[in-house]
């Protein structure tokens, strides 16, 4: 009985941890969206805008996330991002495809919001050289990707979209919290040198 209770407690615990995960939603266009509204008391819109701008230019390589539009008057930033999603393999996961998305950041005094949407799945195929390459004309909005992927691969893909969106969001939050997100001065690395002359 005791063992049973302990087992149930353990299952409930793991269930609770899962329940704390974020989730993707649908927006008014019936597109997948990862949306967050964040309060940041004490930070004015200009500061948040500059920090958001710095995030989009410095946080990721341009191939991964690149600023596509900035509108200071509207306190709005737009970026285009992409990353690889893997496919369940027998031994190891392989490149299933890439996922591109749009990231939008809007700021006001003491708060900002951001969302990732317009996810497009580009399936990959193995070419004659054993390399992975995009399937020509194979890109499909994530909302329709279930028609091209197996159920397992589609669910893996959705999981990875969520995890990546959360990662991008968490990183953005860190940049927005920084007192100064301006370019860091590279301080020369201090190297401790040992003198062999005196001993």
């Amino acid at each position, binding site marked *: 009985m005791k063992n049973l209770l302990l087992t149930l407690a353990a299952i409930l615990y793991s269930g609770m941890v899962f329940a704390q995960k974020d989730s993707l939603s649908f927006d008014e266009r019936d597109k997948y969206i990862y949306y967050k509204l964040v309060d940041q008391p004490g930070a004015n819109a200009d500061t948040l805008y500059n920090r958001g701008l710095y995030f989009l230019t410095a946080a990721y390589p341009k191939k991964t996330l690149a600023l596509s539009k900035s509108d200071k008057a509207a306190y709005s930033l737009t970026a285009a991002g992409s990353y690889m999603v893997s496919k369940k393999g027998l031994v190891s996961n392989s*490149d299933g495809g890439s996922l591109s998305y749009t990231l939008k950041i809007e700021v006001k005094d003491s708060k900002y919001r951001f969302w990732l949407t317009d996810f497009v799945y580009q399936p990959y195929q193995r070419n004659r050289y*054993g390399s992975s390459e995009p399937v020509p004309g194979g890109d499909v909005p994530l909302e329709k990707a279930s028609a091209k992927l197996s159920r397992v691969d589609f669910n893996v893909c959705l999981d990875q979209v969520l995890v990546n969106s959360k990662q991008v969001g968490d990183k953005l939050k860190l940049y927005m919290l920084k007192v100064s997100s301006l370019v860091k001065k590279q301080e020369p690395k201090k190297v401790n040198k040992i003198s062999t002359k005196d001993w």
Partner: protein
Amino acid sequence: MKKVFLLFSFFSIAAFTVKAQDTVKTTSDAPLVIYGSVDTYYKYDFSDKGSQIPTSFASDHNSVSIGMIDLGLKKKVGKAAFVGELSFGPRGQAQSIPNGPNGDSFHIQNLYVSYDLTDKLNLTGGYMATFIGYEVISPVGNFNYSTSYLFTNGPFQNPGVKLTYAFSDKVSLMAGIFNDTWNNYTSTKKVNTFGSQLFVSPVKGWTAYLNLATGSTSGTEVDLTTAYQITDAFKLGLNGATYSAPHDGGGFSGVALYPQLAVSKTVTLGLRGEYFKTKKGDLLTLGPPPGQNVKAFTFTANIKSGPLTFIPEIRLDHGSSTSFLNHSGDPSKSAGQFAVAAVYAF
């Protein structure tokens, strides 16, 4: 104590399972990837006079036979990458790769290293699948299970060194120097086959490759390989090539069309219509005699269930000369076959 330890372990595993899902690797240093396939088939030649249609693989008449197990390893760290792909079985050995000097076979499909000299320029060297043609050795890369005359008579692999420059994701140019003969692990004497490939993607979903391989020992082949995903369901491919053996020794020309229609998420129907003509000369192709031609029509279905693809196929060939035997054993201009294959890719 044991129970407490077990319980602690369970909680830890549960928590770390969730934690482990919270990372997505986005760096360019990909892990070691293991990939490959296995394939098996049954084929029946309608005239019951053995295997008549000279397809590279699916060669055994009235037999449940195997293709190959193909095992590949690849990894990229920073700018450097390698691919090593070995195959075992008739498709990967005697049917496609020559044996070594002692009768052994190295079973190599791809063995090369590559390095990104810049973001746009890549250097690759080793033993690589040929850049020529529409079809490939791996059953995963082909829609039809039997192979075209153009594939069967063209190169399978070209060892050499090549540079590829990507002007954009729509245009790239490859140029390289390859061994003097096709499909051999070593050159017979020289590394003097020049190879080049111009890739263009004029519109979304349309890719075209214009290929050239020319050398004093291997001859000259000019090849166009193109495919256009016209709608979500309909794809049209085309392969045209002409080959001239050295010293006016003959050759071949041909064209093959590959219309394919996805009728559901798991079923795609396709036709390969090919016209293949041999040039007059000494070269004996795997096909009609010099100066003759053959038309081949292959109706194929791909029925997918996850990584497994069933490939039923009917093929009818009709030549200008009596290259085949009919059911009575008399010479015939026509031959037909049925094949069903299963290909598992991983």
